[in-house]
Each structure stands twice: as structure tokens, then as C-alpha cells.
């Protein structure tokens, strides 16, 4: 009797275990797969708020003015979307923008724009959104460094008047294409209570103007549901997926596995060897697979002994094996980096000047590096194989980048090995990100791999300013927010200002050429590789119709326009 009972119990447990293990997929009826698009790679922690004005806003809101963090047009809409392939502005809330004179930008809204709560979206909401950044210190407050006023001329028309002292047209256009417009009737009363009140507003049921609403969110995922009352229904058509789900993975590996298995349809994650994944495609079907969007720069502290000598910086630049970095650290997702602050492909390519790079730039050439060290610098190799300058400075430096930025860490390993081969010691140091941040801003580094402005409507202007402009940059030891290497050159400020108000592309190309030459002759930083603005890859098991370089109906961005193109399979 006892034995039978035991056997039954044991069998029962086995049955239960098998049931638990096997039954879940059958029970797990979630959202209908053919109406649900899974997106990943933007959100890595629980959704705490959907406030675009505060830091770390959850997907799809992101930070206002930060195109790489937001999903523009899903819930909140910007006036335009910027196409990083052809440089055009796609209309969204606005129909067109026009420079009526050198310092006045007039923007015309689309007819019938409406908030999801039914109230009309007018030019006053647009003006209000931009004015918020004048009243308070917000992420897009820099807009007001170049602007005098923003006002609603009538219901449909907004006028932005630039500061005649420093008119910066590209930068203003960039903000116009990235700032998401907020309803004044909801945010106005909050703003009147002060900055803290505004920033700490969690906005858990965001009222936007886009075709999606936040349906639910948890520590595991965020779900958006299509909003059928979208104002732009007849103008643009509705996006195809009824639900958008952003699962929140704790690691890249989990997310990549899901993409590989078709559980994620559209991803913004670094996937190693993406070409090996079945059914997974990117923008290009061959190397480098993605359009470059930013240049991770090894920034040089030009005040450190040894690195204050431009010949040392040049020798270092010649020593690095850029092709090896592109092949290994970047998993072939980059061409070997050129010695220019301008991206050679995509929208910036119109300013890129190959000849200039040949003439003034550098490339991987260890012999040339040694020649500079021995003949021009008269450096002598020490017993440890490291060169020492005539004044006794041993060419030994430390390079930092945050721990966990694996591709960047790998790139620096290559730098370290390449430099060592010619006789310069570059030691790597990988502290936690907040520490590197503090070091970078205070100039507490020899070399640091860090990011500068990415491709956008105002690039490469913003990148030249980030690297070369010393206006308003405090000395080492105090906090800087640009030009971390504290480089300085008398011609830069004038050239940047001329570029900011330049009329024609030819004129711009000429000015950028001069800036690029200053960059190459002085080596305040070394481009190591190119990185896509967003990793854009999709699995066609459940959804198709994503734009690619062969079918470029939309840029490789996570814009709402793509969601109007996709189709269930």
C-alpha cells in the first residue's frame, strides 16, 4: 500500500513537471502575432516614466531632442523627421519649413492636427514646447543659444527668429526635426509650478498626437496599441501593426537570441556577425551592413606632456591599424576609419573630400610612425622598446573608455597593440561609465575613447564644434561639455560661425574642408571607426517590407514611416 502511494506521488510529480515544462507555449496566448511587431534595443530597464523632458524616459518617448533614444512619431510627434540617407526633411506634424529671410524660419503645420484627447494641436503648442527650454534648463535648451524668439503667428504657422549675432541655421533645423511637440493644456500648468514639478512628472498615460498609445508597461515589456482616432489617418495612412511590444532584455545576448529566433522583429542592438543569422537583414546586404552615423573618437589631452607635441600625436595616429579595428572590434560593421571628422558615406558624404584626406591626413603606416619618432622628434628607443623624447619624456600613455562598452574596449586593445609595435606604450583602463564621464569632462585623462555629435541635420558642424571649438571651455580641472582635450586654434571660431550661416553647399564644403585640414594638421583626436547611428536589423519571419538600401522608402531609422511600410507575412 505504502509503495503504491509513493509510486503514485512520484509519477504525479513527473507528470506535473512535464506539464509545467511543456504546456506553457500552448497556454501562453499573448497578443496576436500577425498584428504585433516586437521591437528591441532601446529600453534596458523598467519603464519609470514617459516624460520626454526628464532623463531616461522610457521607449517610445526617449529624451526630447535625442533622436537615438526616441521612437519619433509613435506617441509624440516632431514637426519633421530627418532622413540621414538623403538629407531631406520628411513632413510629420508640419508640412514645410522655409527661411523667409536670413534669420527667420517659418513652419507651416499640417491641417487638422489633433491630440489624442481630441483637442486641436496648434502652433501655440509648438511655440510652448520650444519656449519650455528657454524657461528651464532642459536637454534641448541649447536651442536657445542661437534663437531669439519662437512665436505662433496664427493657428497653423510658427516663426522662429534666430539671434542675428550668431545665426545657426543647421542646428535650429536639427532641433525642429527632433524635438517632440507637447500639449500645452497638460504641460503648461505643470511648468507653472516649477522645474522640479515638471521634471518629476511621470506621465504614465502620455497624451501625444501620434498613432500609438501606451497600453501597458512593466519591468518586462512596454506595449503600445494603435490609436484609431489619429489625426493623420487620411494624410499618411495608419501604421500596420496594431500592437508594438518592446521586451526589456537584461543583456544583449538575450535580445540577440530573441532576434535570431524571430521573437523580435526589429532590433537596435549590436549583433555580432549579423550576416550569419537566418532571416535577419540589415540596411546593406554586404559590408559594412549599416550606414555610419557617428565616429567614436580617441580624444587626446593636448596639455599632457608628450601629447602636447603634435608630432607625437601624428606618430600615434600613423601607428594604429584601422582596418583591424573595423574587422574585429566592429565586426566588419565599419570601413577603416579615415582621418577626417566628416563621415564618408550617407548624408555627410557631400562634404567629404578624399583629396584633402590624402594630402593632410594619416593612415595605418607603422614605418611612417617610426620615421616621425626617430627623424623629426629625435626620440631614442629605451631598453623596454618604448621611445623617449630628447627631453626625457617616455612615450607612455593611458587610454580610457567605460567598462562594458565591449566593441570600444576591443578597439582600444588594437590601439594598444598597434602603438606598441612602433614603440609607443598605450595602456588601457576601463572604469565604470560614470567615472569615465567625470574624467572626460574634467580633462583627467591622456587619451579617451568617447562619443561626439552624431549624424543629423546640423552635422558635421556639431562635430567640428565638439572637437575644435574652445569658446566657453574652461581649463583642465573644471567641467567642460565639449572640446574635452582642450584644443585651441585661432581660426576655428571664425570658420564655425561662417559655416553656421553659409548659404550654399559649395560654400559649406569649402569651409568644412578648411576645418578638416586644421583637424588633420593638429590631431586633437583620432577617429577609430564608424558606428551606425542606430543598429537597424530586422527578422523577416513574421513581418516584411522593411526599407533597405535597395528599397530606400525610408531611412534606416526607427521612424513611424517604416511602420506604415511593414506587412505581416
Amino acid at each position, binding site marked *: 500500500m505504502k509503495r503504491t502511494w509513493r509510486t503514485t506521488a512520484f509519477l504525479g510529480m513527473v507528470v506535473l513537471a512535464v506539464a*509545467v*515544462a511543456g*504546456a*506553457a507555449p*500552448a*497556454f*501562453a*496566448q*499573448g497578443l496576436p502575432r500577425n498584428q504585433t511587431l516586437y521591437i528591441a534595443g532601446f529600453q534596458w530597464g523598467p519603464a*519609470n*516614466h514617459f516624460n520626454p523632458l*526628464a532623463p*531616461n524616459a522610457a521607449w517610445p518617448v526617449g*529624451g526630447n*531632442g*535625442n*533622436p*537615438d*533614444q526616441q521612437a519619433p512619431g509613435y506617441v509624440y510627434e516632431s514637426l519633421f523627421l530627418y532622413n540621414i540617407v538623403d538629407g531631406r526633411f520628411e513632413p510629420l506634424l508640419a508640412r514645410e519649413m522655409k527661411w523667409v529671410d536670413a534669420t527667420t524660419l517659418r513652419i507651416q503645420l499640417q491641417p487638422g492636427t489633433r491630440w489624442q484627447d481630441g483637442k486641436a494641436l496648434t502652433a501655440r503648442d509648438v511655440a510652448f514646447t520650444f519656449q519650455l527650454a528657454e524657461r*528651464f*534648463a532642459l*536637454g*534641448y535648451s*541649447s*536651442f*536657445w*543659444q542661437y534663437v531669439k524668439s519662437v512665436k505662433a503667428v496664427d493657428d497653423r504657422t510658427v516663426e522662429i527668429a534666430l539671434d542675428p549675432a550668431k545665426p545657426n541655421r543647421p542646428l535650429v533645423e*536639427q532641433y525642429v526635426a*527632433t524635438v517632440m511637440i507637447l500639449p500645452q493644456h497638460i504641460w503648461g500648468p505643470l511648468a507653472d509650478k516649477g*522645474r*522640479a514639478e515638471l*521634471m*518629476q*512628472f511621470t506621465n504614465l498615460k502620455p497624451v501625444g498626437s501620434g498613432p500609438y498609445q501606451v497600453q501597458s508597461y*512593466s*519591468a*518586462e*515589456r512596454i*506595449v503600445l496599441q494603435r490609436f484609431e482616432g489619429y489625426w493623420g489617418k487620411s494624410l499618411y495612412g495608419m501604421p500596420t501593426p496594431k500592437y508594438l*511590444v518592446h521586451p*526589456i532584455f*537584461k*543583456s544583449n545576448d*538575450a535580445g540577440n537570441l*530573441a532576434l535570431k529566433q524571430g*521573437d523580435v522583429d526589429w532590433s537596435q542592438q549590436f549583433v555580432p556577425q549579423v550576416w550569419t543569422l537566418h532571416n535577419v537583414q540589415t540596411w546593406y546586404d554586404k559590408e559594412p551592413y549599416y550606414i555610419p552615423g557617428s565616429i567614436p573618437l580617441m580624444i587626446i589631452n593636448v596639455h599632457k606632456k608628450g601629447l602636447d607635441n603634435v608630432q607625437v600625436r601624428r606618430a600615434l595616429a600613423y601607428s594604429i591599424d584601422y582596418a583591424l579595428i573595423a574587422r574585429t572590434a566592429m565586426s566588419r560593421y565599419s570601413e577603416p576609419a579615415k582621418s577626417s571628422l566628416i563621415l564618408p558615406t550617407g548624408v555627410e558624404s557631400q562634404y567629404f573630400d578624399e583629396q584633402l584626406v590624402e594630402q593632410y591626413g594619416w593612415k595605418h603606416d607603422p614605418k611612417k610612425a617610426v620615421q616621425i619618432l626617430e627623424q623629426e622628434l629625435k626620440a631614442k628607443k629605451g631598453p623596454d622598446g618604448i621611445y623617449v623624447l630628447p627631453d626625457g619624456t617616455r612615450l607612455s600613455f593611458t587610454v580610457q573608455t567605460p567598462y562594458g562598452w565591449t566593441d570600444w574596449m576591443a578597439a582600444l586593445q588594437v590601439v594598444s597593440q598597434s602603438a606598441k609595435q612602433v614603440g609607443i606604450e598605450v595602456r588601457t583602463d576601463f*572604469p565604470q*561609465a*560614470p*567615472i569615465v*564621464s*567625470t574624467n572626460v569632462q574634467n580633462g583627467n585623462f591622456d587619451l579617451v575613447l568617447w562619443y561626439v555629435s*552624431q549624424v543629423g541635420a546640423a552635422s558635421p558642424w*556639431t562635430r567640428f*564644434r*565638439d572637437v575644435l571649438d574652445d569658446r*566657453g571651455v574652461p581649463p583642465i580641472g573644471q*567641467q567642460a*561639455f*565639449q572640446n574635452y582635450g582642450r584644443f585651441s586654434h585661432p581660426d576655428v571660431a571664425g570658420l564655425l560661425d561662417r559655416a553656421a550661416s553659409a548659404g550654399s553647399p559649395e560654400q559649406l564644403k569649402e569651409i568644412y574642408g578648411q576645418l578638416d585640414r586644421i583637424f588633420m594638421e593638429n590631431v586633437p583626436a583620432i577617429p577609430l571607426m564608424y558606428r551606425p547611428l542606430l543598429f537597424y536589423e530586422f527578422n523577416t519571419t513574421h513581418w516584411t517590407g522593411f526599407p533597405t538600401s535597395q528599397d530606400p522608402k525610408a531611412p534606416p531609422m526607427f521612424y513611424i514611416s517604416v511602420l506604415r511600410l511593414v506587412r505581416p507575412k
Partner: protein
Amino acid sequence: MTYLRRYIVSKALWYALAFVVAMGLNFLLPRLIPGNPVDALIAQYLRSGGQGEAASRVYQAFLQEFGLDEPMGQQFVTYVGNVLRGNLGTSFSFYPARVTDLIAQALPWTVALQLPAILIGWILGNLLGALAAYKGGKFDRTLFVGALAVSSIPYYAMAILLLYFLAVVVPVFPVAGGYSFGLSPNLSVGFIVDLIQHYTLPFLSLVLIAIGGQAVGMRSMAIYELGADYVNYASGMGVKENTILRYVFRNAMLPQVTGLALSLGTMVGGALITELVFSYPGIGYLLFNAISLNDYPLIQGVTLFIATAVLLANFLVDLAYGFIDPRIRAVQMGER
């Protein structure tokens, strides 16, 4: 009764002192990590270009909001004041979530994982240990060696082994997370099954080791008790075997109760690595994130919470002993 009261009061005072020290350390330790948390917040926030004076305005605004522009002494006073009012502040990295809310979200996962693991591990372990000691022979030897082996595996190694064999080699259970991302939490059968699936491996990694550890401890205690004079005396007097066993079990249990109370106290922070291995939501995972992001208020909040739980559990154990065992009370009061 006055002795008992004096005992309780003196214990309470000691624990209050320990709590104050813990609070001071909580405040100080995160601030010894190099780097400024606002720097990290800003780096993300100002990604879009166009920096200069606007950036330093933003920076100042955040320093002020978090009170980091004040001198350390002032910050400490504010912190203590807030803690006493039950306000653990606003998290930097999950801005603007309240630290108390974040802990409240993570706590159920940790408790649901740990409490059953500790209790089941304790009950089964003790039963098995007592049984082994009583039965002896082959059963004892097999069980003892097995339990010893299992209990000497670090629990994170066990977690990785289970993950490897049951989720990767034979993919019976999911690799990570609290539940599948395709589901939203609800009370349907499907969701609960999914929840249990995700729960199984982290739970097993904790409970197996708990069983092993408890069994080894209980076995030794029981063997010691079985050889005690009162057992010989009782069996000589012809007391029924079951009754003797009950006495043996009860006596051997005393130190095991202490162990249980302490593991309940450390429960909150105890499963840190298990949570990391399985990406299982919980306090350990929260603390790990907070530390890597330099999130002072969140680190302070979580560690204070853990410290409080441990102190409280110890205090309760002390009190319980004061009641249960007069010998301990007497020693504590210096009356022996």
C-alpha cells in the same frame, strides 16, 4: 519580569546603535565610489549636440535638485531627516522613480523566491538529516555524502550548472527573466504556468543547497543527541521509541532555529547572484544596477533596507532566546 525587561531594553539599545552605524556607512560608502552620479545622468541627457552654457545650466539644475551642491554634513542631515520620515529619495538612474517604489516593486520577487526556498530547504533538510542520523547505515552514508557535496557548492555555481544543463543543453526551462516577454501579468492559467517555469531554476538553485546544508547540520546534531545520556536513560526506562525520537528532534532543533531566523533576515540581500544569473527581478538585481550607475539614493535605500532586515531578524532571535532559554538571558545579564 524586570530582568526580562532590562534584557530587552539593553538589547534594543545595542541594535539601535548598530542601526545608526549602518546608516552612517550607508551614506558614506556610495560617496566613496569615484565619479559623480550627475555626470552620468547628463552624458545621456545632452546627447543631441549644442552644448556650452546650456549644458552647465542643466548640470547645476540637477546638482541642486539632488542636493549634491551642499556640503557633506548638510547632505547627511537631510538624508537622516528623510529616512526618519520614511523618504528614501529619488533614484538617479531610474529618475524620477522613488527609491521606496523601486524597492516595493523588487521585494515581492525576492521574497517569493527566497522565502519558500528557505522554508522548504529548512524543513526537508532537517527531516532528511534527522532521518539519516536515526537510520544510519547505507542510507545515512549516501545521504551524508550527497548533502555534503551539494551544500559545499556555492549557490551561484549551482545556478550556473542548472542553467547550463536544464536551459541550454536540454532546454526544458527558460534562460532568464521573471516571465516571458510576450505575456502581461494576469491571473490566467497560461501566465501562472509561465511564471512557474521561470521560477523553477532559480528556486532549485537555492533550495537544493539549503536542503544539503540543513541536512548536514541536523544530522550531526541528531547523532550527538542520540548518544546523550537522557536517550539511554529513556530507552532503559522503556519509553516508546517515537517519544524518544521526538525529544531528540526537539533538542537538535534549537541551533537549527537560530539558523532559520538568520537566513530569513539575510533573505532580502541573499539571492543577489542567483538573481543576476537568471536576470530574475528582485532586490539583488536592483542593487547591482544601482552600484554600476553610481545611484547614491538607490544604493543607500537598498543597503539600509537589507541592514534593517538583518538587524531586525537578529534582534528577534535574541529576544526569542531570552524567552525560551533562561540560561542565555542569565549570561547576557552577567548573572553567572
